[in-house]
């Protein structure tokens, strides 16, 4: 079992080293003439307006929250899906109940307007 994960470790380290090496090589090849204006933050060409800290809407948090709850739900459903062929109808009903409860959660979020991006 471990040598499969060992292959993944090697694969991911190479997959991350490859672009890093490409960026390093390009760094050596490319010129380096930094100027004051050149490195100022780009804002459609005009001077930057106001501090770079802006106020976000609560919408981002709501979407992250709903994603978190449904992500955990799906992760709990995956072992059931793998064992699906060997499970009787009674087990399937339990999983259906599990999904329906969380569908009710989605309906609540829809009703309260948490899903719209106003």
């Amino acid at each position, binding site marked *: 079992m471990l040598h499969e994960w060992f292959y993944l470790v090697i694969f991911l380290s190479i997959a991350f080293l490859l672009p890093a090496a490409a960026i390093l090589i390009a760094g050596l090849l490319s010129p380096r003439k930094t100027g004051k204006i050149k490195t100022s933050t780009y804002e459609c060409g005009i001077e930057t307006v106001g501090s770079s800290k802006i106020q976000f809407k609560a919408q981002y948090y709501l979407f992250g929250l709903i994603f*978190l709850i449904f992500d955990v739900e799906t992760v*709990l459903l995956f072992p059931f899906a793998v064992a699906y062929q060997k499970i009787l109808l009674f087990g399937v009903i339990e999983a259906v109940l599990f999904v329906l409860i969380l569908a009710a959660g989605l309906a609540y979020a829809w009703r309260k307007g948490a899903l719209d991006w106003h």
Partner: protein
Amino acid sequence: MIPLSWFLILSAILFIIGLFAVITRKNSIAILLGIELMLNAANINIITFWRYLYAPSGNLDGIILALMVFVVAAAETAVGLGLILSVYRRRKTVVADDLDTLKG
């Protein structure tokens, strides 16, 4: 192979660092980070004992308990951040000490 004690030492150290973060940090989101770390340390312990003592006999208690720790951590973070954000919207502060209106 790796003796059991190494995993327990690692999880103890992580738990203590999490505890340290919860006590000393003032920002309530940093306290939440500390709690996440403590939950992770507990999870390492659960999976270590499952692997060393119960896995050969096919017992799955450890895995299910670890899954429940994930569910609880997710629910706790969701509600915790919700509270912190609503407090921030009303009080414009995230520092845990300022929230002492109940002290009377």
